[in-house]
Structure formats: structure tokens, C-alpha cells
């Protein structure tokens, strides 16, 4: 019986946003607040000879200026949260990422000084008076070029700029042998270009040291306040954690870029102690381009072998992954355990080897961006299989159907064990593609394509994906190098009047937790949605949390809430049994009341709640109160999957590519709020399609980000897209209580290769048998592909 679960309940959080009352970090003002501006290196690689702040110090409104020399040696910098070892067992190279550089800048945007003044404008003005003397050096920006002998070194103690190398899967020789005896091998060199996340709210942080309580508060635009607190206290500033409060208030989008602990967060906290004033720092969009952790940036060679029948026999993937100048919080996990482990895809490939070399370059750090590793894995697989179909003159959908892993529900049938270290929970892959083909009208489309004449080329591209989310079992990720657990916590506090406050360690920055989680609570407890409040984002009210990323909130955070609800109802039943003079075994709980089976004797949730706090007539030995906390550590990842289809039309004269239709059929397990899930898919699709057609960071050879503004970086706009056509199948997750898998990243993971494949299909149908068009597929690149 569900009143709310499965319904498109309108979002309870919307009211404050549509009336302009959302409270983002930059909206917060405190008495005595001063403003920070960070002076950043305009060069990618340079030695800092000297920094003269004399003139700046006496500028109007300046309160304080700090440079790297002012930060105590003991504060080495922000840490990396994931350790990957070299193939030979050596620990990855992990050079410090200082709050402000002392001797050497390693990317454009590296912080050199922090200027604090009474207004933001005065801080900026004063920054122009800081005189930094630089000696310039050569830079390297490409992840493959960085590993070549003679490349400029980013860190002296990382030879050849290699942060680590890593491999996974079957022995390379076995894969090579299988490829050698394959009937057909498709080989592709490609670049999965660097993306800039571009959450619409620029990052912001307020540090406030309260002298009265000797307590620090950090407001920050973060996806995980508790983890930020832990990292900052234990590994950066050495502060006692109980004396530090971190709040992630309303946050204007994250997409991964606000997971990480950034230098600015630690800086404003440290500086606020020095001057005993609250300090606000908010970045300009230009700074965001330079310093928000970027995504993707892989240079890959991959080979997929097939037997004469079209069955995949082996896959070899070799990737250079760009880490940027420093290792960001989760950076090492992205090209390895979130990428290499997904190269089974939804196919029965018997031999797989993936080899990754992660390199430092003179660029901004790269870390998780919506999908994080899984889009790169999906792109690799789906580009290869679609291209193989063209080369072998087979239908790309038939080739996929032939290779799909047979259905398994994870209950009757075991989860599928891959060649790359995972066991999928449940999957039923053929129906998503079948449904997508129905929605496309596939046969009719192929007819239309065949008959296409005139100045346009039509193409269709497919992508079928499986991803891993709901991260993650702590012991498993610990074995894989995570320096944190990836459980979640939840507290369900029943108030004496029967109203319910839920404290979750998940963090909503657009996902609608205040609604979805409330739907779960209201249904499970049999109470009205209005009686439930979801509280998140404040380390002083929420016991602990690992935050929101990796499509984990409902699968992990939601499961923690369910655990606490179970405890509440179990205790509630004892109180109810006492009041009803019955045994708990004789009670049923439904619609907010306990009823003695077969009678009309019942007691409501509200009465039981009140009794728990006014325990006059109360079970002997039972504690008062109705308030439970839980920690939920998942048994496995969850594995959503889906089929995406793009239809494009290319103008032969100009190469301009119009995305005519986009169809997505995703299976994210059980769905709590279809409206919100559809919205998550839509947003993911736009980001994935944006990568294929419009976006991409461009560093020149000197390490300048030459498209670091909205005048230069092509953000997707409303008229770049058609209306998306989305549908679902439902294969429940067998190992969490809600049967949910996660929907936040699916759209972004599946969509990119579908669009590229559609362009390649159109080009082949037009007689241009090119293997690849580099992303973003600008008109110029598509036009060039047609000239061959």
C-alpha cells in the first residue's frame, strides 16, 4: 500500500526557490563580515621569486593579506581521499596541494595570495597592487604528452609526470591472444575531452571563528559537509572536529564539482581565526572555470574483437588519464575503479584488460564530474560496438542483442560476475533496447534514412549502458583504496505530537530529497507527507553523513532512513501493545495505527508518540522517547542500465548537426517520484549531449585555458535540444530495502556516445567512412569529416 511512493508528488522545497527565498552561501550575511579575493597565478608553470604586498596592504578597506609564506608549514595542503597503487605496488605520487603556493605555481589559477577587505570590490582592487615576480617555465597539458620523456615536470618527485599506473581484468597476453584470433577487430583512438562542470551557483565559502565559543563555522557550497569537515579538521588545519560546524545550505547544483574539499574552504576558516572576523569568499565565473575540479580528459586506444558470428571475444583498453596539477579528493578513483570496472558493460565479453596511466599536467585538477568514469567507460564500449557494426555491416542493435548478458534478478539468479571485479546486482538488458526501438520506430526510420535525398544526412546512434552507483560498500571501497567509508546515516526523530523530523547525511543540491525522502517516510510510517520534515546539510544537526554523489542518496541514504523507521515502528509497537494490553505479535501496523488483529481495538501513531515522551502508562524497562539513528552500509553497488538513441541531421554544406530526437529508456530500479526521476534524466542527457556537441575545455600549449568564460565555452542552451523522449523499465535492486538503484547520473552516462554514433552513422550513410569525429562535434569538425 503506497500513498506517496511511485507518485509524482510536487516538490516541497520549490516554494522558497520560486519566491527568491532560497538561501545559498553567498546570500548569507553576518555582522562584521569581510570579503576575500584570491590572487591567482596567470601562468601555468612558474617559479615565484617574490611577492610584494606593501602597496596592497595600505589600499582602501584592506583588513589583511596572506601569502603562502604566512601559512604554517604544518598546514601542507588539501588531501586526496583515494589511494591507488602503481602496478608494482608503490603508492601513488601524492604531492601536496598547498592552500597558497610558496615557490611554484603549477596551473593557471593556482592561489598565490588572499586579500581580505571590507568589500569585495576593495579586495579585488587591492589584489591588483600585489606584485608577484615570476620566472616562467614550459608547460604540458596533454595527459599522454606529459608521460613522454623530456616533458616539463609538474612535480620533481613524479618522474615522467606519472601519478600512478594501474591495470585490471584478465592477463594482457590472454586478451592479446583472443584479439589475434578474432574474426574482426575494431580499433579506435579517441579523446574523451575535458569538461567544465559549470554548476550555476559559483562556489562560495564563509569562514567564521566565534571567539565566545572557540568554535569555527564554515558555510560552503558543498555536496558533503561532513566529509569536508573531516578532511579539513583532521588532514588540513588540525582543528578539533567537535569545535567545527560545516553547513552546506542551499547549493546551486554540483554535478560532482562540489564534492571535493577545496583550498578556499580551509583558507577562509584559517584566516577567520587570524582576524577574528567572518570572511566570505565567492568565486567569479572566470575563477570557477579555472578552479572548479574539471571532468573526463582521457586519451584512449581501445580494441574490441569479435568472432565470425559477431560475439565479442575480447577487449583491450589503454587510457591516459589527466589528473591536472594536483590530486583532487576522489581523482584517482575516477579513471580506475569507476571506469575500468565498468568495461564489461552489459556484454558477455570473456576477456577484458584495462590499462590506465594517470599523469600530472599543468592544468586544473580533474575529478568526478556527473558519471565520473562511467561515462568514459560507456563511451569507450559504445563507440566501439557501433563502429564495429558499421565495419562488419551488421545492424548495431542486432549486434548488441547478440552480446547482452542474459537477464538475472539477483534473487532467483545470481548476480553477474564480471571480468573486471564487480558483481552486478540485477539486470534485464534486452527490454530497454526493445522499448527504445519501439519509441524510435526503428524500421520506419531506416526506410526514411535510405530514401533521404538532398542536402541533409540522417543518422541514428545507439548506446546501451550499465553503471555502478549507490556507492558503496565501505569494506569493498576500502580494499580499492578509498580512505573513507561510504555508508550513510539517518536519524528519525518522532516529536511528542507525532510529527517527524528526519536528519539525513545525504545532501540535496537540486535532487529534491526534501520531497522524495519525505514520500518514503510518510508511506512507511503511514502518516501525512506534511508531518515529515527532511533536514540535511548541517553538521551540527545531522549526526554524520557521507554526502551526495555517485547517485547514492536514495539507495544508501534512503536505506539508512528505512532502518531508522523500522526501529521507530518496532519500539512504537511495544508501546502500542502496552496501551492495548496485547502482545506485539498480535498487532498490525497500517495507516498510522496499531490494531489488534481481528478486532477494532487500535491506537494511533500520535498517541504512541505522546506516550513515548509522557511515559506514565508505559512498558516496564522501556526507555522513554522515540528517536533512532542508523548507519547503513550497502551490500553492493547498484547497477542501473538503459538504452539511449540519438537521431541527427547533418547539413552537407555546413556540417551543422541538428539533434532531431533523443530517446532514453532507463532502468533505475524502483522509482519513488517519477517526475523527479524524469527530471534527473533530462538534466543528465543535456550534459551528456553537451559533451558530444558543444562543450570542452581547451588549454593551449602554454597552459592557458583559452575558453574559460561563458563567452568562449559553449554552454548548452534551450534551443540546442529537442524535447526528450524518456521511458523506463523497472528491475528492482535486490539488496536494499527500497529496491532503488539511483538516477542522478544515468542520463549523462548513456547519452554522449549515442550522439557521436548517430553522426558517424550519418557520415557512413553519406559515403564518408570515418571512424571518429572529435568531441565536441562542431560544424567545422563534421564538415571536415565529409571532405575525406
Amino acid at each position, binding site marked *: 500500500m503506497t500513498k506517496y511512493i511511485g507518485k*509524482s508528488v*510536487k*516538490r516541497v*522545497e*520549490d*516554494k*522558497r*526557490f*520560486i*519566491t*527568491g*527565498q*532560497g*538561501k*545559498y552561501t*553567498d*546570500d548569507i*550575511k553576518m555582522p562584521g563580515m569581510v570579503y576575500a579575493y584570491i590572487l591567482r597565478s596567470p601562468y601555468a608553470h612558474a617559479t615565484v621569486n617574490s611577492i610584494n604586498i606593501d602597496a596592497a596592504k595600505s589600499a582602501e578597506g584592506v583588513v589583511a593579506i596572506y601569502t603562502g609564506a604566512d601559512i604554517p608549514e604544518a598546514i601542507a595542503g588539501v588531501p586526496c581521499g583515494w589511494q591507488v597503487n602503481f602496478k608494482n605496488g608503490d603508492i601513488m605520487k601524492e604531492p601536496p596541494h598547498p592552500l597558497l603556493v610558496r615557490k611554484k605555481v603549477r596551473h593557471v589559477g593556482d592561489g598565490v595570495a588572499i586579500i581580505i577587505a571590507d568589500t569585495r*570590490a576593495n579586495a579585488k582592487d587591492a589584489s591588483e597592487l600585489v606584485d608577484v615576480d615570476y620566472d616562467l617555465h614550459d608547460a604540458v597539458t596533454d595527459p599522454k604528452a606529459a608521460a613522454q620523456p623530456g616533458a616539463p615536470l609538474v612535480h620533481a618527485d613524479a618522474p615522467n609526470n606519472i601519478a600512478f599506473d594501474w591495470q585490471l581484468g584478465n592477463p594482457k597476453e590472454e586478451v592479446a591472444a583472443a584479439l589475434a584470433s578474432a574474426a574482426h577487430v575494431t580499433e579506435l583512438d579517441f579523446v574523451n575531452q575535458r569538461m567544465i562542470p*559549470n*554548476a*550555476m*551557483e*559559483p562556489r562560495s565559502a564563509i569562514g567564521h571563528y566565534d571567539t565566545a565559543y572557540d568554535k569555527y563555522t564554515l558555510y560552503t557550497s558543498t555536496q558533503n559537509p561532513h566529509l569536508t569537515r573531516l578532511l579539513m579538521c583532521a588532514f588540513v588545519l588540525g582543528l578539533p572536529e567537535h569545535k567545527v560546524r560545516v553547513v552546506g545550505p*542551499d*547549493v*546551486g*547544483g554540483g*554535478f560532482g564539482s562540489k564534492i571535493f574539499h577545496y583550498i578556499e574552504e580551509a583558507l577562509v576558516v584559517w584566516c577567520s581565526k587570524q582576524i577574528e572576523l567572518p570572511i566570505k569568499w565567492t568565486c*567569479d*565565473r*572566470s575563477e570557477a572555470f579555472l578552479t572548479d575540479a574539471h571532468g573526463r580528459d582521457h586519451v584512449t586506444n581501445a580494441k574490441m574483437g569479435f568472432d565470425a558470428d559477431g560475439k565479442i571475444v575480447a577487449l583491450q583498453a589503454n587510457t591516459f588519464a589527466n589528473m591536472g596539477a594536483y590530486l583532487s579528493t576522489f581523482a584517482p578513483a575516477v579513471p580506475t575503479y569507476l571506469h575500468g570496472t565498468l568495461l564489461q558493460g552489459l556484454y558477455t565479453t570473456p576477456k577484458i584488460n584495462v590499462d590506465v596511466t594517470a599523469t600530472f599536467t599543468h592544468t586544473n585538477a580533474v575529478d568526478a564530474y556527473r558519471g565520473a568514469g562511467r561515462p568514459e567507460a560507456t563511451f569507450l564500449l559504445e563507440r566501439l560496438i557501433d563502429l564495429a557494426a558499421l565495419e562488419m555491416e551488421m545492424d548495431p542493435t542486432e549486434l548488441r542483442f547478440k552480446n547482452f548478458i542474459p537477464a538475472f534478478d539477483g534473487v532467483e539468479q545470481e548476480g553477474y560476475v564480471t571480468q573486471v571485479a564487480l558483481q552486478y546486482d540485477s539486470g534485464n538488458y534486452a527490454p530497454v533496447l526493445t522499448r527504445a526501438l519501439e519509441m524510435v520506430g526503428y524500421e520506419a526510420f531506416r526506410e526514411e534514412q535510405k530514401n533521404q535525398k538532398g542536402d541533409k544526412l540522417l543518422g541514428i546512434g545507439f548506446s546501451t549502458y550499465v553503471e555502478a552507483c549507490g556507492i558503496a560498500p565501505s569494506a569493498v571501497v576500502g580494499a580499492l583504496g578509498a580512505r573513507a567509508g561510504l555508508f550513510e546515516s539517518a536519524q528519525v526523530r518522532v516529536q511528542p505530537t507525532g510529527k517527524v523530523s528526519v536528519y539525513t547525511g545525504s545532501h540535496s*543540491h*537540486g*535532487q*529534491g530529497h526534501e520531497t522524495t525522502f519525505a514520500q518514503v517516510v510518510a508511506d512507511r510510517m503511514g502518516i501525512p507527507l506534511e508531518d515529515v520534515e527532511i533536514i540535511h546539510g548541517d553538521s551540527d544537526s545531522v549526526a554524520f553523513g557521507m554526502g551526495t554523489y555517485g547517485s547514492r542518496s536514495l539507495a544508501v541514504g534512503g536505506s539508512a532512513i528505512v532502518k531508522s523507521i523500522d526501529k521507530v515502528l518496532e519500539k512504537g509497537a511495544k508501546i502500542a501493545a502496552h496501551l492495548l494490553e496485547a502482545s506485539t505479535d498480535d498487532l498490525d501496523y497500517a495507516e498510522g495505527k496499531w490494531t489488534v488483529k481481528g478486532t477494532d481495538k487500535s491506537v494511533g501513531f500520535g498517541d504512541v508518540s505522546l506516550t513515548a515522551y509522557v511515559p506514565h502508562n508505559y512498558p516496564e524497562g522501556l526507555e522513554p522517547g522515540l528517536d533512532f539513528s542508523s548507519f547503513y552500509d550497502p551490500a553492493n553497488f547498484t547497477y542501473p542500465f538503459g538504452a539511449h538513441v540519438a537521431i541527427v541531421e547533418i547539413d552537407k554544406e555546413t556540417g551543422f548537426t541538428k539533434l532531431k530526437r533523443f530517446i532514453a529508456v532507463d532502468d533505475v530500479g524502483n522509482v519513488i517520484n517519477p*517526475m*523527479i526521476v*524524469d*527530471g534527473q534524466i*533530462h*538534466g*543528465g*542527457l*543535456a*550534459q551528456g549531449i553537451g559533451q558530444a556537441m558543444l562543450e570542452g575545455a581547451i588549454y593551449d600549449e602554454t597552459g592557458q585555458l583559452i575558453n574559460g*568564460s*561563458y*563567452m568562449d565555452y559553449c*554552454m*548548452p*542552451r*534551450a*534551443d540546442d*535540444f529537442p*524535447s*526528450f523522449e524518456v521511458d523506463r523499465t523497472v528491475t528492482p535492486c535486490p539488496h536494499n530495502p527500497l529496491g532503488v538503484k539511483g538516477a542522478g547520473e544515468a*542520463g549523462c552516462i548513456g547519452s554522449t556516445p549515442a550522439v557521436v554514433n548517430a553522426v558517424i552513422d550519418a557520415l557512413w550513410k553519406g559515403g564518408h567512412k570515418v571512424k571518429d569525429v572529435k568531441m565536441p562535434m562542431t560544424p567545422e569538425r563534421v564538415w571536415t569529416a565529409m571532405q575525406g
Partner: protein
Amino acid sequence: MANKISVTVNGKQYTGEVESRTLLSDYLREDLSLTGTHIGCDTSSCGACTIHIDGKAVKSCTMLAVQADGCEVTTVEGLATNGNLHPMQESFKEEHGLQCGFCTPGMMMTATDFLKTNPNPSEQEIREALEGNFCRCTGYHNIVRSIQLAAKKMSEAV
């Protein structure tokens, strides 16, 4: 240099001094604490700061506060009247036209002005009208639906 200005914002008159260089967006946020107007970029591209000046949608970061002297300004905080949500606000909620909410004020201010000039737009016309407003969450899909619904509500109300 300080300049004296007098502006009517959401029906309320404000008189004060501003620096010549102060952008209208900063004036609204910092001086008037109307933080519903958001700043998402530094190139007048993203549209999060869109407000109405004398009834017309304007990116408030493209104007100096002094230029608003004597003007009637409406921000997202002034979109609802007498406690009743504007049909555009209702529609954004009903069609799930927002996720993180950061672009939403600018989207709604652009869209309400657009519907004044084109009360019955096609989907394509809506998409083109939103070219100056970025959203990273919704893929614009439900923003378009929201504006379609608002157009319907507003034409029925006439």
C-alpha cells in the same frame, strides 16, 4: 564616488547612495538584501540575475545601479502579488521546472516578459527566448513545459 539614487523595487521606494561602479545586481543583493536575484557569471551570459526594469526583462548585471535611478524594478521577490503566486511560479512548481533553483528567478523573469510579447508561443519560440538563460540541472525540458503551462494559465485568466 557616491551617487544618490532613488529606485522603486517591488513597489517599495528605496533612496540611497551607491558607488558609480556598483552593478544593479550587486545593489539589489548587497544594499537591499534582495538575494533572490542571483549572479552566475561575469559576462552577462547566464541570465540568473534577470529582473524587470519598467516591466521589461533586463540582466541586472548589465546595468549600473545609478542607471536604475527613477526606475520601477521588479525582482523575483515581487513576482507574487498579495501572497498569491504568479502563474509562472505555479507552473514552474507544477511542471518541475526547477531543480537546484539557482537559475529559476532569472528564468521566470525572462519568461514572464516574453509571454507579454508572445502570449501563445510555440515550443521553438520558447526555446529561442531562453537563449540568454542557462540552466545546468533540467536540460530545459521542464522549463519549456512550465512556460507552456504558464502561457495557458495566463491566457485563460484574461
